[in-house]
């Protein structure tokens, strides 16, 4: 399946053949192929659960394949260990950073291969090494800064530096842009291109197709554990890649047209459905996380909040939901929410799709049916007991209407794919009686087909006159759905624009804090 006709690459940097890797009954890779030429930027794309990360973890020695062949630089390395992989110059930068926040940049970089003078750590040498690496690669980070003080973008640079410090020549990055602002993404591309020009080989796992087109030279598409396409980036289109990923045509968020200004906004003086005034949240360490935020959302309007993660969006949403102490006022349809608890706010008409699906939105060991009543369990009772019959019929109806698969309501939520888990949350929150919806990262880690589905549901809620507060780290999602766009930076709303004035170019400077309006 891999295209062996490329004549210019006699020994590819990576050649994976027929890789099979299963976890219990789940086959993550079922005959996956990957061939990456030396000195290229290679994009590995596919829906969630297509087996991309598994395949790369096999390459990095974290998993041994059940069968198949692996070669790096022409050498057979099937089933090697992580130590072998590091020694051979294969390094992986994970989606979730693996840094010690209380140590400095230099200490983190040398962790695992510490420089010492006798029994003592040689910090000066480590700092020098970091500086030299920074100079060579353009990955500039202050070596003495504590990792806990770095921005997410800087922390990611430390991850890459750490990998390079260990001598990586083949660099695998797992969804590196999920946490970056547009300018930071551009800086990352510059660094990756520089590394490539110095002879490095880069594999980029992503499902953002505009990035694939932007930065890669070759593309491998995976679907359901198999490699289904291998093509040069030049000459292909996002639509063609998406078709290969999903196996059918889909509406892409990145080219989804914003579908027009809702009628209520044109009417003007409609009373706000959600009104937030002077809202502030103090973090655990006493630092302000949300500072004097003010906004209102009309019925039938989606207000999208863009911004790099960690600028107070989580705290804002949780404060409105009642999960976090806050000062200021929050009113829903004129009713003061501040004295109400989480459950009472829900009963008052607040619906909430939380950003953290695994910790907050679902009890993974509970069944699909039980998760479909989570937060509304007090409405499904008969005396003190839960009404099993009503819970089951509720589940059957939502499973059918929201196409949750598998369709068995008794399965634990843990057994479902990420996209279907998110459908449980969306189904539950949109089927309750609500006026305001808080949607935080509603499509994070969800495959392309489910993203389309969830976006349609959010637009429908808007069209039915609900007020929607959308928070997303994915700017294209904010732009595709929102009627107005706000940008959060440093706990403040630094810009609030009508959709017609919002674009990646106009929002970018606000997202990095370079500009302030509002």
């Amino acid at each position, binding site marked *: 399946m891999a295209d062996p006709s490329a004549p210019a690459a006699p020994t590819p940097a990576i050649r994976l053949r027929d890789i099979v890797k299963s976890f219990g009954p789940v086959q993550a890779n079922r005959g996956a192929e990957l061939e990456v030429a030396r000195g290229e930027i290679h994009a590995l794309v596919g829906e969630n659960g297509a087996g991309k990360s598994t395949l790369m973890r096999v390459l990095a020695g974290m998993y041994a394949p059940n069968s198949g062949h692996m070669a790096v630089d022409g050498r057979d390395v099937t089933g090697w260990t992580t130590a072998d992989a590091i020694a051979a110059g294969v390094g992986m930068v994970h989606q979730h950073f693996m840094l010690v926040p209380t140590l400095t940049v230099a200490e983190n970089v040398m962790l695992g291969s510490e420089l010492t003078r006798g029994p003592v750590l040689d910090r000066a040498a480590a700092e020098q090494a970091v500086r030299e690496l920074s100079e060579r690669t353009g990955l500039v980070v202050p070596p003495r800064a504590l990792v806990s003080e770095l921005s997410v973008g800087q922390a990611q640079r430390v991850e890459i530096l750490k990998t390079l410090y260990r001598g990586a020549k083949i660099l695998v990055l797992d969804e590196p842009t999920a946490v970056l602002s547009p300018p930071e993404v551009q800086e990352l591309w510059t660094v990756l291109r520089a590394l490539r020009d110095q002879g490095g080989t880069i594999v980029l796992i992503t499902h953002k197709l505009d990035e694939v087109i932007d930065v890669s030279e070759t593309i491998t598409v995976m679907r359901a554990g198999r490699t289904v396409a291998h093509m040069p980036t030049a000459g292909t289109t996002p639509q063609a890649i998406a078709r290969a990923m999903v196996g059918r045509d889909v509406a892409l968020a990145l080219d989804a047209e914003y579908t027009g200004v809702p009628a209520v906004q044109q009417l003007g003086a409609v009373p706000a459905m959600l009104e937030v005034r002077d809202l502030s949240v103090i973090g655990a360490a006493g630092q302000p996380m949300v500072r004097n935020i003010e906004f209102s959302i009309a019925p039938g309007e989606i207000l999208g909040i863009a911004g790099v993660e960690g600028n107070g969006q989580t705290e804002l949403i949780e404060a409105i939901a009642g999960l976090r102490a806050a000062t200021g006022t929050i009113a829903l349809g004129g009713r003061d929410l501040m004295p109400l608890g989480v459950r009472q706010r829900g009963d008052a008409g607040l619906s909430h799709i*939380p950003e953290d699906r695994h910790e907050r*939105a679902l009890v993974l060991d509970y069944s699909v049916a039980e998760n479909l009543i*989570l937060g509304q*369990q*007090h409405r499904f009772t008969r005396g003190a007991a839960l009404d099993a019959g009503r819970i089951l019929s509720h589940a059957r109806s*939502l499973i059918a209407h*929201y196409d949750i698969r598998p369709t*068995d309501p008794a399965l634990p939520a843990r057994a479902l794919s990420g996209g279907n888990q998110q459908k449980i949350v969306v189904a539950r929150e949109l089927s*309750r009686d609500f006026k305001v919806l808080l949607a935080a990262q509603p499509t994070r880690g969800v495959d392309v087909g489910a993203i389309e589905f969830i976006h349609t549901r959010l637009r429908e809620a808007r069209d039915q006159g609900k007020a929607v507060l959308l928070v997303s780290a994915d700017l294209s999602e904010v732009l595709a759905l929102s009627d107005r766009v706000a940008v959060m930076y440093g706990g403040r709303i630094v810009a609030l624009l009508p959709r017609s004035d919002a674009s990646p170019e106009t929002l970018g400077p606000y997202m990095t804090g370079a500009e302030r309006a509002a």
Partner: protein
Amino acid sequence: MSAVEPTMMPVGDTPSPAETASTSDRRASRRAVIEEAVLPPLVALLLAAVVGDALILSFGQSPGAVYRLLLDGTWGNAYGFGQVLYKATTLVFTGLAVGLGLRAGLFNIGAESQLAAGGFCAALVGLLLPAGIPSLLCLPIYIIAGALGGGVVGAVPGVLKARFGAHEVIVTIMLNFIVLALLNYLTSTRLHVPDTLHTAEIGSGALPRVSDAVSSFQGSAANATIVLALLAMVALWWFLFRTRRGFELRAVGLQPHAAEYAGVNVGSVTWRALAISGAIAGIGGLNYVLGYKHYYEEGFATGAGFLGIAVALVGRSHPIGIGLAALLFATLSQGGLAVNALVPKQMVDVLQAVVILAVATSVPEVRRLLRGARRSAER
């Protein structure tokens, strides 16, 4: 609950393969749940048997003979069996107490003192009640007294945790010392019958023994508290798995953040769970005070609270499992007396410890082995 919007149509034109695989998925997941619940204790028993064999051989005895003696002395005759039932009854209460805590994500090490406090309060009430009241009439009063005694001791770490974040393990351990010392002080200075460590006998409400109905149980302490233990098992099962409060309590134990999101007041579930846990342990004190000696005695059930932790762990915090585990540990503890002629009875303590250690470590290990076996079976 609002109606589902009729406009919402499913996407996806072809049924996914996952859909057709649903029934086999379901069967597999059921099987996995059952295997995970049942296998670790069985593996633990097997390990304990192996260690037991080695120990017995080291004493120059035949394992077969020792095990036969152990069984003859427990399940082999009415008296021994009655003693097993009596000991198991207390262990059911302490096991349920610890198990309820575990379901809420709390480790209650305080069942030992909660059991004693429950027994003490029951005896105190018994001293105040006039003689001649029918047992059935005063039983509810005793249950309330036992539950209050244990429940107050359990509520203290609960409130401290919910209010100040004090870790319940530390607080319950420390409370064991404080409460037991306090009860001993009160008993030995105010309430004891001279020259003994126990109070006077209660006026009314002694529960009938099994031997009153079946004479071959003569001499064993098994009594009607067994019925209370069975009722407690059923009640706790119903509470945990059928009620809204149980649903919320288990959610707090599994994922406190999700419970908070679902509108559950995690702090209040925490202190209530520990208070109820203490109350259950406290009711266990009736087994001795109403069913056996009819007075409170210092150290009347020493070790039963700590053994309750083992019972809950081996029983996987499920009321049925706890009932079976209580029988197992009661059998071992009674059997220790029976085999004393051949091997030191402490050997049985070693076996208990092996079972506990093996269960504690075998849960993830067994899971891993099962996965490996299934994978090689598939290939």
